[in-house]
């Protein structure tokens, strides 16, 4: 599977590259999923075999008799993209050994996509198993912190205070009660050679992480923040602006963990913005600005500060 890392100098070059993800899909205008997927598919000239869990990406890109995928693609169920892709990877190994591949020297990368519901929740066991087994693949979670495809139910990636259809804010409730599960740390604890968190507004950082992922032998987990215009409730034109607030408020810190121990922060905002500026532009957090929920806003800021402190210490300690 020899391949070279593709050189991409600027955004124009990236956006006009070999386009294997067709524009004619059914994702919402302003959805970050397609930005992330296109960047992945354009960041390499290698052949790709892609699997997807059931979710927004899947239902929007392969509605018979159409497909948006100009590459091999498979979807089985809600939970098992990590397993279907590792089945494909195993078959590639077996057939390469036996000499039954049509083009045995063609470079190929195996990539799985899942939303946060299918990654953090229903597909977690499948992801954990696939990473533990050490297959050569990259798993990308398109994390929009909610079951968006089914109309906005909470997942274990939904952050505290978010109003969803199954954790609604109301007269006496501030919405979701639990902190978001730290899946990046959990995947790093699997001993995966490369784990990272990325965001499409920082396209160069994301590109580097994607290319590192594809060049890494063994299992890779990438957590991609995918701002959801529909469920986060912001104007579709503001996807990148909201993502900027996410990374600059450090709600979504950008970092990587190599071999489970070496943590590198890959983006340090020059001007860190308050968390409430990020929350304030999204309808899902609107109720938090009622006086009786002020303590939740405070807790939010405290949590983000603590996480940032933790990441910096991990970076220093190299353990």
């Amino acid at each position: 599977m020899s391949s070279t890392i593709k050189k991409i100098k600027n955004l124009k070059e990236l956006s006009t590259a070999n386009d294997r993800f067709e524009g004619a899909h059914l994702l919402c205008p302003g959805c970050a999923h397609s930005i992330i997927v296109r960047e992945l598919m354009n960041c390499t000239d290698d052949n790709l075999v892609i699997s997807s869990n059931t979710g927004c990406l899947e239902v929007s890109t392969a509605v018979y008799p159409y497909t948006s995928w100009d590459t091999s693609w498979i979807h089985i169920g809600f939970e098992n993209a990590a397993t279907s892709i590792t089945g494909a990877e195993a078959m590639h190994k077996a057939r390469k050994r036996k000499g039954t591949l049509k083009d045995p020297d063609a470079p190929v990368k195996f990539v799985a996509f899942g939303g946060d519901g299918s990654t953090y929740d229903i597909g977690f066991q499948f992801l954990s198993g696939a990473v533990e087994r050490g297959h050569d693949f990259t798993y990308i979670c398109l994390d929009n912190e909610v079951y968006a495809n089914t109309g906005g139910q909470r997942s274990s990636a939904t952050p505290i205070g978010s109003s969803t259809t199954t954790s609604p804010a109301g007269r006496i409730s501030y919405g979701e009660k639990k902190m978001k599960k730290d899946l990046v740390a959990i995947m790093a604890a699997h001993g995966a050679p490369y784990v990272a968190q990325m965001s499409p507004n920082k396209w160069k950082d994301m590109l580097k992480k994607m290319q590192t992922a594809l060049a890494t032998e063994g299992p890779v987990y990438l957590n991609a923040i995918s701002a959801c215009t529909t469920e986060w409730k912001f104007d579709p034109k503001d996807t990148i602006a909201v993502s900027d607030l996410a990374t600059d408020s450090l709600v979504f810190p950008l970092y990587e963990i190599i071999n489970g121990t070496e943590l590198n922060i890959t983006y340090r905002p020059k001007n860190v913005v308050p968390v409430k500026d990020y929350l304030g532009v999204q309808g899902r957090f609107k109720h938090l600005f009622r006086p009786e929920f002020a303590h939740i806003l405070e807790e939010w800021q405290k949590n983000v500060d603590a996480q940032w402190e933790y990441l910096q210490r991990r970076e220093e300690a190299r353990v």
Partner: protein
Amino acid sequence: MVEKMDLQEVEVWDGNFAAAQALRQAQVDVVAAYPITPSTPIVEGYAKFLADGYVEGEFVMVESEHAAMSGCIGAAASGGRVATATSSQGFALMAEVLYQASGMRLPIVLTVVNRALASPLNVRGDHSDMYLGRDSGWIQMDAFNAQEAYDLTLMAFKIGENHSVRLPVMVHQDGFITSHTAQNINPMTDDDAYAFVGKFEPVSEMLDFSQPVTYGAQTEEDWHYEHKAKQHKAILDSRPFVDKVFEEFKKKTGREYKRVETYMMEDAEVAVIALGTTVETARLVAKIMREEEGIKAGVVAPRVFRPFPFDNVRDTFKNVKAIGCMDRSSPGGALGALFNEVSAAIYTGDNKPIITNYIYGLGGRDLTVESLKEIYRELALNAKSGKQNGKIQQFIGLRGPKLEYFE
């Protein structure tokens, strides 16, 4: 190149090892599996063959049966030969993805060692898992002993992988009675087996990058129905190909298989229809009943449970007066599944025999020769009197007062 195994003309294998040997001789490319009693030795066998250099595929030991079949689907869509094994709860956990495998027309071979479904938890053999798969769109073949488990597993690859079929195939054997009982087996030589099963010829494979392919698309009311209808057509259209493979196998080995197996049915007045190891016991008892009690007894057994041999079953019973339908699965508030299907087949014919539904052997409870004798006697009475003498559904070999339903 892999090591060949020097096999004796007669080997002593249990059903599990027989199935494992068939996977070896088929040179399966990927086995994705999760262990479960009583089918575990099949995939352990593949692992050991790999460790000893007798196969050169990939053994992917996943974290659940659901993942096992998911991995098999990903592997099969990538253009190679794929197989796995399971039982009972594992089969139930796989159920979601069984439908995906058949819907994507992927020729995976699943060796199912039949075992009861909990609760209560039970590791012994009955047919509840086999019945659970009956609408899944897989071809289902049933072995009554270890030799047949070996033969049918080899044939399963050839049937499912045929480009006119392209369907996944299950090969069933009874938990413990077949899977763990050592019997004399006549294996093919490795060379003969390779030649018989043949090379895997991929169709629409994900690893042919010159022709990218989309697997697992979505269809709603506009196309879903057409897809499912085509799938049903495919499984029904597989019948002549199954027959052809049975015929080729007979030429190679002398061992004959039919989609419906019959025993002493030429002049039978009463017959038992059953699946699994019960078929062999029933054959023994039918012979005894003829010799000792003058009852013209016969045995019918669907070798291929799906596609259901509807017309063959009907024709087999065209001169029979009374039938005992043996269901080894808890019927859950209805007549047994085999009873329902056999009754439907017979209803379309001119002959209207009296049909009784015997529920038996749940959770591995033995079906004794004595119980089968009583069944044949009751069938003979029904035949003679021209009416149902007991209730239509009866539980056999159960503690306590007799449980029977429907008139």
